[in-house]
């Protein structure tokens, strides 16, 4: 697919030259930039334009992502150049124009001069020499390198030639022909001489024309500049056109051969078109067919290139868009994750705080309960005993006995408070300990009957074991204090779904609506803390019944 559309033999050198100097100015240090630029340059060198274009586009997008308005210029200029070489002039112009704002932001005269020159070439190619002249002027005004200035001057002269203003072209080219700088650059010098020769030809100055054309040809032959040689042959063919048609055709054939050798389609077409016009009918027909074929291929290749560039651009734009979308999605995801995590942490701490508060409340109630018990059950008795000792004669045996009895009562109450708050073993001894605890409230006057046949202790968790233990204990303490019961029946059973405690005694019961004090209130709190339910059934003289159900 390699097709070199050299719009005019007078421009290529300028581009390459500029870029060789400009190339070193790219200092972007990222690896992806480096790999891409290496690939792009090597593809460009091997004239694999589509791949080169792809990598330059990648660099462009990379710079765009990084908001690097400095390094974006080079790949863009390269892309525009490739488009121009591939004959997609419109896109090339577009790309150049796109690069212009970046260059204005980061003025680099070399690049700018190249850009103006390239635009001028495009306008020239699009048969807009006035616009081309403007841009050549712009390029000229910022170019300082003497060789580049020579080349530009040559380009401007060529522009005049295109406008058929050969006198102006000759004036310009004449000023160039003796430039020392130019003499050291064969191809460029040859171009100037060739252009001068061609201009003289059109001014019908055959002698000077021949002299310069032959001189240029000689330099090009020496330098093996096939590209330039093609131009020389075509121009010489033009020269011989009237005086010696056979020699003219011969030169045109040389041009065709050289152009075919270097695959220069435009020059081939030019040579062919000369031959069609000047050869005999048979040959002319043959050349015409070749011309049409070549022209078709160039059009289709140009169209193909055009489509390809558009596709690469579109694909990379699409990829960029997708990358942005993915980035946005990622950001949303991260944002969501952060929200979720912070919410979880918030909830966790809230629950922890609430639990801590609950625990503190329970601890506080327990503490105050113990304090109240110590006050109610012990302090009073101790005080009574003190008063007793203070006022009575302890030598009397009955007083001593009374004192001992009082102290014994205090001792037992202390024991009870201790038992009510001691640790509960929820391990394998739980059931026996539990029954021992219940047994403590049993005496010669009171029987506590147990229905534990369906109480499967091993099926309930330690927390519930403690609750059952404490609840039963509270009920028994309450019974012991107030009921005067002689019979108590305690039934505990658990199924898969629930645990139930049924308590009933034959004590005095109560009519008092405020019976739920201390102990019973604690029972209720404990049951509610595990979402259980409880019902009381009590009337004066009819005993006290409680049914508790705890879901499992």
């Amino acid at each position: 697919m390699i097709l070199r559309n050299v719009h005019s033999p007078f421009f290529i050198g300028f581009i390459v030259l500029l870029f060789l100097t400009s190339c070193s100015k790219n200092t972007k240090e990222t690896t992806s930039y480096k790999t891409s630029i290496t690939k792009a340059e090597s593809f460009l060198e091997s004239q694999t334009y589509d791949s080169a274009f792809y990598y330059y586009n990648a660099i462009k997008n990379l710079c765009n992502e990084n908001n690097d308005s400095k390094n974006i210029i080079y790949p863009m200029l390269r892309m525009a150049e490739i488009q121009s070489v591939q004959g997609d002039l419109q896109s090339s112009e577009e790309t150049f124009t796109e690069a212009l704002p970046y260059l204005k932001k980061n003025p680099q005269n070399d690049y700018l001069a190249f850009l103006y020159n390239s635009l001028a070439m495009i306008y020239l190619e699009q048969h807009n020499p006035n616009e081309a002249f403007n841009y050549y002027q712009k390029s000229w005004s910022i170019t300082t390198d003497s060789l580049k200035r020579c080349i530009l001057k040559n380009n401007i002269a060529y522009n005049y030639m295109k406008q058929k203003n050969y006198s102006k072209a000759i004036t310009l080219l004449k000023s160039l022909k003796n430039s020392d700088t130019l003499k050291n650059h064969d191809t460029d010098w040859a171009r100037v001489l060739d252009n001068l020769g061609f201009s003289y030809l059109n001014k019908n100055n055959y002698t000077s024309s021949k002299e310069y054309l032959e001189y240029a040809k000689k330099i090009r032959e020496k330098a093996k500049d096939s590209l330039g040689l093609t131009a020389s042959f075509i121009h010489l063919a033009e020269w011989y056109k009237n005086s010696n048609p056979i020699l003219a055709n011969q030169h045109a054939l040389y041009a065709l051969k050289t152009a075919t050798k270097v695959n220069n389609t435009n020059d081939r077409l030019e040579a062919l078109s000369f031959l069609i016009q000047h050869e005999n009918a048979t040959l002319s027909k043959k050349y015409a067919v070749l011309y049409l074929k070549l022209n078709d291929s160039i059009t289709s290749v140009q169209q193909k290139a055009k489509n390809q560039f558009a596709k690469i651009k579109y694909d990379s734009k699409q990829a960029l868009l997708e990358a942005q979308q993915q980035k946005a999605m990622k950001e949303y995801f991260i944002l969501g994750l952060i929200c979720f995590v912070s919410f979880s942490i918030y909830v966790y701490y809230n629950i922890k705080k609430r639990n801590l508060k609950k625990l503190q409340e329970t601890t506080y109630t327990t503490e105050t309960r113990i304090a109240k018990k110590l006050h109610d059950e012990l302090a009073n008795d101790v005080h009574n005993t003190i008063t007793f000792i203070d006022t009575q004669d302890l030598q009397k045996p009955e007083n001593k006995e009374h004192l001992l009895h009082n102290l014994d009562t205090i001792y037992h109450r202390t024991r009870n408070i201790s038992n009510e708050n001691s640790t509960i073993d929820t391990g394998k001894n739980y059931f026996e300990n539990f029954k021992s605890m219940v047994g403590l409230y049993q005496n010669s006057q009171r029987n506590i009957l147990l229905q534990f046949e369906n109480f499967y202790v091993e099926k309930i968790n330690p927390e519930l074991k403690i609750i059952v233990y404490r609840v039963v204990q509270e009920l028994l303490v309450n019974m012991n204090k107030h009921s005067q019961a002689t019979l108590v029946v305690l039934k505990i059973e658990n199924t898969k779904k629930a645990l139930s405690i049924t308590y009933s005694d034959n004590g005095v019961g109560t009519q008092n609506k405020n019976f739920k004090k201390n102990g019973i209130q604690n029972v209720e709190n404990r049951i509610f803390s595990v979402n259980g339910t409880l019902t009381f059934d009590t009337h004066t003289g009819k005993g006290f019944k409680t049914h508790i159900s705890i879901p499992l």
Partner: protein
Amino acid sequence: MFTKILVAEDFDSINIALVQTLQTLDIDTIEYTKYCDDALLKYKKSIADTNPFDLVITDLSFVQDYREVAIASGNQLIDALRALNPNVKILVYSVENRAHNIRLLFEEKNINGYVHKSRNSISQLKTAITHIYNGSNYISPELEHVLHKQNNLEIDRYDISLLQYLAQGKSIDDMATTFLQLNIKPNSKSSIEKRVARLKDLFKAHNNIHLIAIVKDLGII
């Protein structure tokens, strides 16, 4: 009588009372300590001197103070002593009154005596030491019931069905027949009569009618 007794008890006042009591029994050597660690050390030394203590009296619960201890409770001390000498006589003197815990001391740790700290504990201690010296175990009378399994106040579904049949007005004869048919054991007349008597005893009932009235009131049936 014992000649050498070791006492582990963390309250000075109790220690003084104990030592006074033991002196009335003409015991030659009475050593006491407030820490289980020290008690074990003293016991080890007595073995090393080939003159071990005859009896160790220990509390179950020891108050924790500034001192870091390896053995924190009487239970652990008993285990350590038993490991040194399985035949050492041990008397526990404690406020613990939970039946199960006391039962475990006798059944699993093979203690020789248990005196409950109460009004009469001083006299009980003397009796306990004499009992142990004579080779028998001792437990304070008020806790004696914990060692008897028969103080079982549990009622089962057999008892409930008995009560239900009684409430339906069935005679013992009828019940025996029905139980036999349903293959419920025991179903002999005498065993049923015994169970009914036990229930009357448990529920403090004077007769069958009274028994039914009581269990109805309590909501058992």
